């Protein structure tokens, strides 16, 4: 009998894992709570650093995992542990017995309205990084359309590295996403002045630094080191941003037509809920806790439970894909080991 692997979450990690498992001859079952596959990446427009269309990546992944069993609009009702199996009960009434569960539950975007001082949901001209990608994809957003855009601001670290927002972790991708989006906006609105308000720029990935240099040199994007203190609205509906330029040591004030908040990655409450059914440990940042953060990032402390992608912390797309493959390899070697 072909070994069944339950994959919780049909984002890029889940799809990549399913396609690799299929290649190895196993039977992956993807459980996805929403009505479509691809997770957050499917909502994105283009990916740094090569501006690859996100759509292409997602459709490739879906194509290569099409032979997997996929349950859309299905949530985990409960999971219980049998002798060496797990019984996974889905909300659509289907029950799956499997020895292996792979968590690819991912993250959730920080709710920007929680940072009240930035006025998301209060001021019309304040949007998030996700809203902007949605606009890139669909071209539909009343806040951007029909408005003359002369100045745009990007606020880094919204709900990341912020104790008061209860998220002390760095979301890793926002620095480079902000630079990517700033360049894209500059291309769309060549006359606009663009400001990035940052704490630190953490440009660790391949070609990230080049991207940053390009943004400054070729696109004239202003990088201001300092957190935004408050945002208010003027009569025209534009937003006034007050911040401190910590390099100049001076408070600054700028009026913007559009303010983009770089919402960070926070733990997904659904993954915490499923994890609690198996009494899996949760780390202090709220994400799932791997059995070891260096050697065994994809392993959980329980037999047969594996992790891949952003369910254990913020990750980039290539990191997530690599983890999915690595988790599959671990499952594979375990199955081989048990058969001997």
């Amino acid at each position, binding site marked *: 009998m072909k070994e069944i692997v339950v994959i919780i979450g049909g984002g890029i990690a889940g799809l990549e894992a399913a396609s690799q498992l299929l290649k190895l001859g196993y039977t992956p079952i993807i459980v996805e709570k929403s009505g479509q596959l691809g997770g957050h990446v499917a909502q994105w427009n283009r990916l740094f650093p090569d501006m690859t269309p996100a759509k292409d990546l997602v459709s490739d992944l879906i194509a290569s995992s099409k032979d997997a069993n996929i349950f859309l609009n299905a949530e985990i009702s409960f999971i219980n542990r049998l002798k060496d199996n797990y019984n996974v009960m889905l909300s659509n009434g289907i029950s799956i017995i499997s020895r292996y569960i792979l968590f690819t539950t991912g993250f959730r975007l920080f709710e920007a309205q*929680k940072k*009240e*001082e930035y*006025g998301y949901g*209060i*001021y019309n001209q304040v949007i998030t990084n996700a809203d902007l990608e949605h606009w890139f994809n669909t071209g539909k957003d009343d806040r951007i359309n029909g408005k003359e855009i002369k100045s745009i601001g990007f606020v880094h670290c919204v709900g990341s590295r912020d*104790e*008061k*927002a*209860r998220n002390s972790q760095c979301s890793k991708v926002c620095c480079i996403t902000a630079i990517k989006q700033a360049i894209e906006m500059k291309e769309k609105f060549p006359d606009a002045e663009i400001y990035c308000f940052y704490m630190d720029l953490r440009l660790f990935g391949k070609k990230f630094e080049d991207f940053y240099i390009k943004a400054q040199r070729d696109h004239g994007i202003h990088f201001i080191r300092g957190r935004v203190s*408050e*945002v*208010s*609205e003027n009569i025209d509906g534009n937003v*006034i941003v*007050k911040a401190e330029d910590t390099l100049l040591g001076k408070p600054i*004030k700028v009026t913007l037509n559009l303010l983009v908040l770089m919402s960070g990655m926070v733990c997904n409450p659904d993954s915490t809920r499923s994890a609690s059914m198996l009494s899996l440990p949760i780390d202090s940042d709220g994400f799932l806790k791997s059995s070891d953060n260096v050697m065994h990032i994809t392993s959980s402390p329980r037999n047969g439970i594996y992790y891949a992608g952003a369910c254990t912390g913020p990750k980039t797309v290539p990191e997530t894909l690599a983890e999915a493959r690595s988790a599959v390899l671990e499952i594979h070697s375990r199955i081989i080991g048990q058969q001997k």
Partner: protein
Amino acid sequence: MREIYLSGYNNFVLPFMLGMIFVLSWCIIGAIRVILQLPKEDRKRFFMSLVNPKIMLKNIRDWFCDCLFHVKLWKRNKLLGYMHSSIAFGWFMIIVIGHIEVFLYTPERVHQIWYPIFFRYFVAVTESTMKGSFFFFLMDFFLLVILSGITLAIIKRVRSRLFGMRRTTRASITDLIGLYALWSIFPLRLLAEGFTADISGGSFLTKSLNGVLHSFLSDHMNMLPTWWAYSIALGIFMCILPFSRYMHIPAEILLIPMRNAGIKVRHARKGFAKLQVYSCPSCGVCIDACPMGAVKANIKDTTVYLNRQIKRYNEKRIEEISDKCLLCGKCTALCPVGVEGDRMRIAQRSIRKYNLSPDYSNIDENMLLERCNKFVSSTNNDVSSTQNQKVLYFAGCMTALTPVISKSTQSVLQKAGIKFEMMDKDGGICCGRPMLMAGRKEQAEEMVAKNTAIIKASGADTLLLSCPICYKIFKEKYHLEGIEVIHHTEFFDRLINEGRLSIKGSDTRFVYHDPCELGRGCGVYEEPRRVIGRAGVLVEADKNGKESICCGGSLGSLTLSFERRKALTENALNNLTVASPDVIATACPLCRSTFNRYSDRPVKDIAEIIDEATRRKNR
């Protein structure tokens, strides 16, 4: 009554006399020192109050109600109240009746101050006893009352929860000596008087004791040692009194008239502050009151321990305790003697020496002034109702961080057709309250002066605030003659009463959280509840009003870290949600954002609720 001993003296009165002289001189010198340490104008005010019949009447009432009957404790818990008032009032009555007896029967002994205390030892009953049996009965009755109080006190040491107290103060060594001396005084007195019951007369208690323990009590060899023991217990109690919590007994007698004279804490250690420290009875009511008590480690940072450390001059701990406090004022509100824990702490902070001081003199208020003098050109001077009011709305820093409050407030004002201007639309100067809380009075005053200039120049007649932190200082420290300072909850209440806002109710269940600065700070409890009651169903928290629990986000604390406030916020939220409300309503931007961080249900400011409720109507 007939005297037995010609001299009217026995050596056993010595311990009592020693203690008495010591404690009297200590208290008199202490009182003189406290009065001398007061600033000149305060001292004058204090002496003037003593000849003011109205204040004097209040003093007398307070002395009886607070010192003897402990009315505040009765309100808190009947058993706790009875325990304290039985001992205090009973003892007071025994002293009074003792003196009456001496006056009546042996008037020539009045000048011997030990005589009323040991009266029974020195006299014997005669045929005229019947005349005194009334007093005999009273003496025994009050002794019984005290003994019942002492019994309760002993039970309280073991089971304080019976007395409505979850936690009590850990007694210091001098407190314990005083406590045991106090406990032993009255049983010893009963025993001593038991000996003389058949000679000097007695009533139901002493007479019966004399009958029951006849073999022991009729042996007069045992008599003198018992009287000695009684006198020694009194002596020890009085000698230890200045160094123990029982110092509150004499200190409170002076504290009450000073408080009624309107004297405030001006110096961290001297004068009125010193008196407050010595008036602290270490009862520990503040321990249960303190919102920091949600974390056990914070118990040692409550007001009772601040007072103890000030007495011990332990500067390190004084600094820790006074910097940690949230300044919510709940200990002050509940303190049975009126020790002002929050003001005391601000006073401690104010004597701190800083190497660097911020300088605000370079802030250019002229620029802000120009932007704000909107009403000057207006000629309408009729301000009899909100109809013609010229409202200046100062949102403040905290509201700037929660823009939804300022936006909703402005929207409500527009709907009501109020003529208003924003004072700090494009930036403003801090109200000064955070600096004041940090004990940095001079910096606060700089800001007060600048803001006063702006407000006065604006030509407004009403200053509207949506932040209770600002509201408190604008009310207390600003001199804005002719300009009404009003909080938005009060203003909305007025607008609704005048029919300028039409609100459609809903069946949403709201619980109202009293912000510290608005409730205990400014005494505004009713208006917000009335306003919320119009917009939905108002339910109450477990502890509310004066006993409301600080949200934990207070600016008052200088050292409490963000993480360590979490438990306090969660505790306050548990208190708020007992009646399972749908929405937590508050009237402070800081409470709102603090609760929002951990709450499982929406947290809204009154302005948002009213804005939504008026929108409902329009739709």
